[in-house]
């Protein structure tokens, strides 16, 4: 066994340190950047756990079903931090021992990304909002503890009217004030993050699936299929997206969040164009011709050669679309066609705030700030990813 192979192993010291605290193993080997990531992830999770325990909101302590998701996610993420950091340590040790002369595309992309402050800031913002969305019930306020008389579940707190608190200005009890039904604005913002991210993610996923398939097929086969797809796209694009979605949504009266996701997901076909143009350029490359010549089936060519080459632009478009979808959902809710009341969503909070702009500024300011922060996070991440994944643009 050579010296470098000996070094390329996890030592008991590594394992013990990492098991004690994820990141310590990295720290001992001097990789303090990664150590910092694991330790701060751990700190965030630990703080959340502390908060949940202090507020008696862990699922088994509270005995209320609505905390199960957050509790389960909390422990899942804890476990993930440990396992991930151990695997990562092993991987890093191995790859350090091997001598690299050439970095792969993705390794280079990751290296560039980790040095781009824009992308890091975007990731941090998104993680923060995601954290709030996952752990909403732990973070939201509540009158007292479960079992004590007068206890109000956090969700109820964000939904239930309490007209005695009508538009209370920001105070210690309600840091961001209360709205026209006496509901705590901060609580509604916290729960609203679930709606925004949920619809944003699902709608964008559908966009990618539908748009991606249309773009792949249209771009690869060209001819009649492509012409038909492009005409349909052109017809759909000749009405502003917001107006089209508004029209389609008015078909489903009281459809709610599910129909929002579906409509945004199906009609947001912009990715199709981008994928198509990417596919058009890839299919002319020699390796695709070669694959066709040796008789590789079409679906395999699409999946193995065309899609991986289009994946970089797909990632960028996805990131940007999440932001766009969040803004569109807010706009629709603002017009009264989005998330139905009393579900807290940032857009519908703004709709209610519009009437009271003279008397309750806090109702209008904070939901908008939440939208801007979240969308900004996705936009700078997308911007940074474009720089990172497409070095031609640099």
């Amino acid at each position: 066994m050579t010296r470098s192979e000996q070094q390329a192993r996890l030592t008991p010291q590594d394992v013990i340190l990492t098991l004690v605290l994820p990141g310590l193993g990295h720290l001992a080997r001097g990789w303090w950047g990664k150590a910092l990531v694991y330790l701060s992830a751990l700190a965030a999770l630990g703080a959340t756990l502390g908060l949940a325990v202090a507020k008696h909101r862990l699922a088994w302590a509270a005995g209320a079903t609505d905390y199960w998701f957050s509790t389960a996610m909390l422990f899942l993420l804890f476990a993930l931090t440990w396992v991930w950091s151990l695997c990562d340590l092993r991987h890093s040790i191995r790859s350090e021992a091997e001598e690299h002369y050439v970095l792969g595309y993705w390794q280079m992309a990751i290296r560039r990304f980790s040095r781009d402050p824009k992308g890091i800031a975007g990731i941090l913002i998104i993680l923060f909002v995601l954290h709030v969305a996952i752990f909403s019930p732990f973070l939201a306020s509540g009158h007292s503890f479960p079992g004590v008389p007068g206890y109000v579940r956090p969700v109820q707190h964000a939904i239930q009217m309490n007209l005695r608190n009508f538009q209370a200005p920001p105070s210690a009890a309600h840091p961001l004030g209360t709205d026209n039904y006496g509901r705590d604005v901060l609580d509604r913002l916290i729960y609203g993050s679930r709606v925004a991210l949920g619809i944003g993610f699902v709608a964008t996923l559908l966009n990618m699936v539908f748009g991606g398939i249309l773009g792949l097929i249209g771009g690869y086969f060209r001819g009649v299929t492509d012409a038909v797809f492009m005409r349909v796209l052109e017809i759909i694009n000749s009405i502003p997206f917001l107006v089209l979605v508004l029209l389609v949504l008015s078909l489903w009266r009281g459809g709610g969040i599910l129909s929002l996701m579906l409509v945004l997901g199906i009609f947001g076909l912009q990715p199709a164009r981008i994928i198509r143009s990417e596919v058009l350029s890839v299919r002319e490359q020699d390796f695709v011709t070669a694959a066709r010549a040796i008789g590789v089936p079409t679906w395999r060519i699409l999946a193995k050669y065309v899609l991986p080459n289009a994946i970089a632009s797909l990632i960028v478009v996805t990131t940007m679309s999440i932001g766009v979808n969040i803004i569109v959902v807010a706009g629709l809710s603002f017009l009264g066609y989005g998330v139905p009341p009393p579900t807290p969503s940032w857009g519908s909070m703004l709709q209610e705030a519009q009437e009271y702009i003279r008397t309750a500024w806090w109702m209008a300011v904070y939901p908008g700030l939440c939208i801007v922060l979240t969308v900004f996070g996705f936009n700078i991440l997308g911007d940074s990813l474009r720089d990172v994944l497409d070095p031609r643009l640099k």
Partner: protein
Amino acid sequence: MVGYTVRRVIQLVFTIFALTILMFVLLKTMPGDPAVIMAGLGARLETIQGIREALGLNRPLPVQYWRFTSGLFNGRLQSMTYHKPVWTVIAERIPATLEMGFFALVIALAISIPAGLLSAIYRNSMLDYTVTTVALVGISIPVFWFALMLMLVFGVILAILPVSGRGTTVALFGSPWLRFSFVTWDGFRHLIIPSVALASVQMAMNARLTRASMLEVLRQDYVTTARAKGLKERVVLLKHAFRNALAPVVTNIGLQIGGLVAGAVLTETTTAWPGIGRLMVEAISRRDQAVVFGLAIFVAFLFQISYVTVDLLYAYIDPRITYD
């Protein structure tokens, strides 16, 4: 060129035709019977039947489609709830959107193009970082919230601008419905908040676009050549680089009309600006199928025209591009 133009126009006609069918199907599957809504609460069945009869809602669908489409083109299609021809309803609202959109575009271009240019010229400077960050924040701000914040700051806290509405309007060109508000001081003050709000997104997008386009041009060989032959930096930047960098920006303005219309829907609703964007929302909630139909076709037509214009303009600005 002529051949291309003809092809595009044929395509345009086809798209509009397909859209009339799509819109008709959409509208007919919309829940809510316009006759019931028009008759009001507690109406008798005979009244509702009468309205259905009058609007032709009891005729077979192909006949209704024909009435809608032909009525749209010969101007006889009546609005169901405004009791006027559809085109009159739309025409009355167009000037409001037109002046708001125009001012928004002027504000956006006046700020974004210099900002984009400067940040490209002084790349990686403090100024560049400021412009790119502000532009990134700008594309993340929902227009309606920005309008609300402008209303809050300038209308409520500082109380120097009116919060909503259109103020005094004056009929221009002797036409009863061409009423503009920017000609009066009061109307102009009303115009500021909506157009600045609407401008915000265009501003951010154009600044990014100008910067990217200018950076691209500055990398070209002819810029190096111009510098190498000893031209003044000002001449290089303004005559050689700026002119060429502007082409994609100018042509993109046409493509942004879509964003402007969508933005107008939200801005007009927020600031109670009586333009076609607000009309769209109103008509949808009133189930006025005729107005929604007319408006959608009108907007689509506008879009298509601007796309065709952009394509032709592009070939005109950049002689290297030829279609056919």
